[in-house]
């Protein structure tokens, strides 16, 4: 092993076992946390932060797409009895450029 890697490993091992200082929450944080929790639990399952909203949006998207697709097909592709007539006329009538 590279001597530098060995030194780094020893350094990390020692650092990992360093004692942590005493950790106590600052004054007032308890109250703030409790107040936030009370506020959040007073509106459990609100419409805007539930997974229900996401599901609803996905469903609405699918329904919208399902409604649009037939409409898109009917506008982009000519269909029905008149479409055949138009295509036939297009293919048989010579354009003014081609006439002698």
């Amino acid at each position, binding site marked *: 092993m590279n001597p530098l890697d060995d030194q780094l490993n020893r350094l990390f091992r*020692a650092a990992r076992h*360093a004692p*942590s200082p005493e950790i106590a929450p600052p004054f007032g944080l308890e109250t703030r*946390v409790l107040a*936030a929790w*009370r506020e959040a639990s007073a509106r459990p399952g609100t419409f805007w932060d539930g997974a229900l909203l996401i599901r609803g949006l996905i469903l609405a998207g699918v329904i919208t797409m399902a409604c649009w697709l037939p409409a898109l097909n009917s506008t982009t592709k000519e269909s029905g009895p008149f479409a055949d007539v138009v295509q036939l006329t297009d293919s048989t009538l010579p354009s003014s450029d081609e006439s002698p």
Partner: protein
Amino acid sequence: MKEPDLPMTDAEVTECLARARQGDEKAVLEIFHYMYPHVTKLVQANLPARESAEDLIQQVCVKVTTHLHQFSGKVPLLHWVSRIAVNTCLNQIRHEKRRPEVRLADLSEDEAAVVENLATSSAELSASDQVASRELVNKLLDTLKPKDRLLLRLMYLEGRNLEEIAQLTGWSKALIKVRAFRARAQLRTRYSLLMKEKS
């Protein structure tokens, strides 16, 4: 109420969560005291600007307690809390640009002694060197990019495995391996510069 200093068992945490869901404020406070040291360690370890750590710790604690009803219980509570803390830190440090350099002159006497020990002996560092080692590691890690720093801390200081890091950060295992390799190489370079300066 349970003494904050005593660690809670998994069963106690589950019981506490159940009481909190029923509206028991004491249970919420017990959970808060249980997670607070963990959140503090994570935030302090991952945030370069130490002066803003307190704000971020409070932010994480409030976020956790207000979303407690969304905790499914599929993973241990502290894993869920860690994920929230790590993501909050990542959002905070995303735009960080400044990364200080480490020079031998910047090290304290104890930290310089650790460097000396590492260079001259192949033995493990003694218990009295542990605090200085932690400080030295912090200084070296502060020279890396935030994400690299976070990864090396999770791997080498907290002893997390690949699976846990993937869960905490949301990164793929392949990305973690590549990033860890590069971060480690950069750290080695920084350390070698320190050694060159010493010699």
